[in-house]
Structures are given as structure tokens and as C-alpha cells.
């Protein structure tokens, strides 16, 4: 019981620390959304009736989650505290960060990842499909999500190799599944 409480306490401290970094994280992610929209202006329109509805993107190995809302002409990301309470998301997508990144940039197959147990989805399955298809059409690169625009072209191949390596070593047992 004590062990459980200590775990919860340390998770909470990590979450609080991450939330301190919320403004720069949100700024970077919102710029990424803006860049994606500029590059593929029609992509977010693929969300159809799910435009303006908030999705929860929950990387289980990070101390915080992300609320993503997209419109035909843009969108935004908020860094949020993970909670068990229903928060009105149209869908919640959780999994390991590397899998989620690979899905966002279209380098991993979503169906194979989901049906192999690498992802959990809750809420409207149609909304999840629409988001997947909108992000595919947006042609995001990993670097768009993780580094400033000026560095994206040169850093994208490196980031891609890191994510591919991390996912491959996990598959082949080079590193234990779910290691954080």
C-alpha cells in the first residue's frame, strides 16, 4: 500500500513538473499544428463533423497528456493532466510515445499497431479514423512536432531513425516492452 502511494506521489510530482513547462510545450506544438495546416490546407477538413471536437492524445510513458482540437483552418494543442474522470473528449487515444509519434507522421501502420495491442482507443471510433486520415493527409514529419521549423528538415531523418530504432528494438526484444 505504501509502495502504491509512493508511486502515485512521484507520478504527481512528475506531472506537476511537466505542467510547469506547459507554456513552451504548448507554443511548440501549436506552431507544429500551424505548420501542418499551412503545408496541407485541406487536410484538417477531413475531420468533417469532428472538427472542433477535442481529442485526448495520451502517451502513457509521459507524465502529461495532450488535448488536440483541429478545425478546417487550424487548431490547437493543450498540455493536460491525466485524469480518470470523463472530460468530454470525442475520443481518447493512448499508447507509448514512440508508437504515437510514428502514427502521427505516418511511418507506422495504425491498424497493425492497434490490433497488436499497441494502442487503446476510447470514444467514437469514427472520430479516431477521421483523425488518423486527417493526419495522414497533413504529411506531418516527426521534426514538425519536436523541433523548431528552421531545424526540421535537417533533423527529421535523425529523429526518424531514433523512433524506428526504438520501436524495432522493442519488437525484437532488444529492450523490454514498455520500458520507461
Amino acid at each position, binding site marked *: 500500500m505504501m509502495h502504491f502511494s509512493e508511486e502515485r506521489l512521484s507520478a504527481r510530482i512528475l506531472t506537476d513538473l511537466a505542467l510547469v513547462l506547459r507554456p513552451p510545450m504548448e507554443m511548440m506544438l501549436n506552431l507544429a499544428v500551424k505548420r501542418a495546416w499551412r503545408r496541407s490546407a485541406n487536410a484538417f477538413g*477531413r475531420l468533417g463533423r469532428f472538427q472542433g471536437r477535442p481529442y485526448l492524445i495520451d502517451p502513457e510513458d509521459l507524465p502529461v497528456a495532450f488535448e488536440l482540437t483541429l478545425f478546417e483552418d487550424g487548431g490547437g494543442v493543450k498540455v493536460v493532466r491525466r485524469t480518470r474522470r470523463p472530460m468530454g473528449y470525442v475520443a481518447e487515444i493512448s499508447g507509448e510515445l514512440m508508437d504515437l509519434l510514428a502514427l502521427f507522421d505516418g511511418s507506422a501502420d495504425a491498424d497493425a499497431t492497434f490490433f497488436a*495491442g499497441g494502442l487503446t482507443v476510447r470514444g467514437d471510433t469514427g472520430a479516431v479514423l477521421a483523425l488518423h486520415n486527417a493526419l495522414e493527409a497533413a504529411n506531418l514529419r516527426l521534426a514538425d512536432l519536436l523541433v523548431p521549423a528552421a531545424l526540421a528538415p535537417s533533423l527529421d531523418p535523425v529523429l526518424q531513425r531514433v523512433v524506428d530504432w526504438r520501436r524495432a528494438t522493442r519488437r525484437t526484444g532488444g529492450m523490454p516492452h514498455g520500458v520507461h
Partner: protein
Amino acid sequence: MGSIELVCPAGSPAMLEAAIEAGADSVYCGLRDETNARNFPGLNFDATELTRAVDFAHRKGSNVLVAINTFARAGGEDRWRASVKTAINAGADAIIAADLAVLAHVRQLSSAVRLHLSVQAAANTPEAIRFYVETFGVRRVVVPRVMSAAEIADLIKESSAEIEAFVFGGLCVMTEGRCALSSYVSGQSPNLSGVCSPPEAVSFERTSEGMISRLAGLALDKTPTGATAGYPTLCKGRFATDGDATYLFEEPTSLNAMGLLASLRDAGVKAVKIEGRQRGKAYVARVTRAFRKAIDALDRGESTAPYEHMLTDLAEGGRETEGAYNKRWR
């Protein structure tokens, strides 16, 4: 192009580009409505995207085949007419259709555009094919996935049209265009609505023991943790009979007939098709690349064996089958 035309799926412009860059000879796609059999949220092309896609494909030496392969709904025929017009105006190399009315409308609007008979028409006899060829000028027939390789070889001997056969991807075990399982449970089918197991009717529940998939509230399967699940379709559901839970129609598995490419080619199959417009860039790039290598190897007189197990992790349930191609039962 090699000895067999490689026809690959494109659910979006990004997927179309990925397929062509990976070596597709032709790509097939649909418009954003129920006139094609992959009518999923966020998928498919609008008129502008289709025109750009055709331009891109032609610059790369590839063909674009537009699927308008659902059956027109009484009172809603205008939508199918509009899709045909959009495809022709975009410069599509062929229209893939199944409905007699759609086939006739295409021919009314254009004598030039190629007509391919969709698998949804389930034409599997020389007489049926002859009818479509003589009536509408159909140039190619996509044969149902319930036919064996021997049956396809026999059919080709008497066929007056080119034959295209599926070689990879989701495996419909029912004769296409005649399956009502999805509409029985959800009210929507691939035949009329363009969706099998519409996503709004699908839900997944993860428990400590595994994942339960449901369609319109009806539990289809419970996959233990660590195992790879199948698609939430009724034909791949697991049902209890005589106290034993088993897959009554078909186990969750994908078609992979790469090992049969040589015999399909020798039988006279003109084109092979990859299923999966609803998948994505990663899927289409990997599958196209593998089949491109296999066809090129075949044309050099080499074996396709080195490429035959490259795609298992993309298969439904993590398992592959040659499906009905080798079936010995009726």
C-alpha cells in the same frame, strides 16, 4: 511495368503518392461519399484532389482507376452520376463499377474511358463476363476472392476480358456484393453504404484479460492480451456453438498470395490487386515495395520466396493465408 500490373490502394493523396513512389503501376481510389466501397470518415478524394492525383500519377507513368463500385440507391442515383462525371473530368484511366446502372451511365457519358468490373459484381463465369463485355465494353474483370487458382485459370481460357485478382490484404470470405452480414447488425453494408462494420457502430473495450470488440453492441470477439486481434466484422467473429467458442466463418487472417504470383501470371492474370485503401501510407508503401520486388524477381526468372514473409506484421490477426486460391472444399 512488368509482366503483371501491380494495382495498389490509395485512400488519400498522400497514400497515392506513397504507392506510386514505391512502384505501383496503377492506383485505385474513390470519392468522398457512399459511391465507393471504402466510405470511411476522412478518407478518399474530392474532385480537385482527384484531378491533381491523376496529373501526378500520369507524370510518374502510373494509372489512376476510380472505384464507383457500390450499388446506386433508389432515389439517390444523382450522387453516382456525379461521381462518374467527376472521374471522367479528372482524366481517370478507368472506372471500376459493379452496378448495371452505373456501368451504363459511364458508357453513355464516354466511349473512351476504360471500364473495369468491380469484384462487387462477383462475375465468375465466362457467360457473366461476356455479358458485361458485350453490353458495356468492360475491359477488365476483378474476380471474387472466393475463386480458386484453378477456377481462375479455367475462367481466363474463356474470358473475353482481362482478369485482375486480389493478392494481398483483407479477405472477404463471402461472395462480394452479396454479403449482408454488416447490414444485418449495423444497418449499413459495403454494397449500398460503402462500409463494412461502420466505425460509428464499432467499439473496443480493453479489460485485464484482453480486448472485446463489438459491432452495434454485439460482442464479436475477445482477444487475449498479447494476441493480435482481427477486424470487427461479423464474418471474423467468434461464436459459441456446442459449448465451444470458435470462428464460424473465417479466422482473422489476411490474404497473401505472393507465392502464387508465378502461377497466376502463367494462367494469364493481367493484374494483381492489393486491398487496403483504409490503411495508410506506411502500409501501402511497404506492401507495394514488397510486391514490386516480387514481380521484378519473377520477371528475372528468380523466386519470390525472399519477399513472401516481409508483410506478416501488417496482416489481420498477424496471420496470412492463400485463402480460396488453394481451397479444396466447396
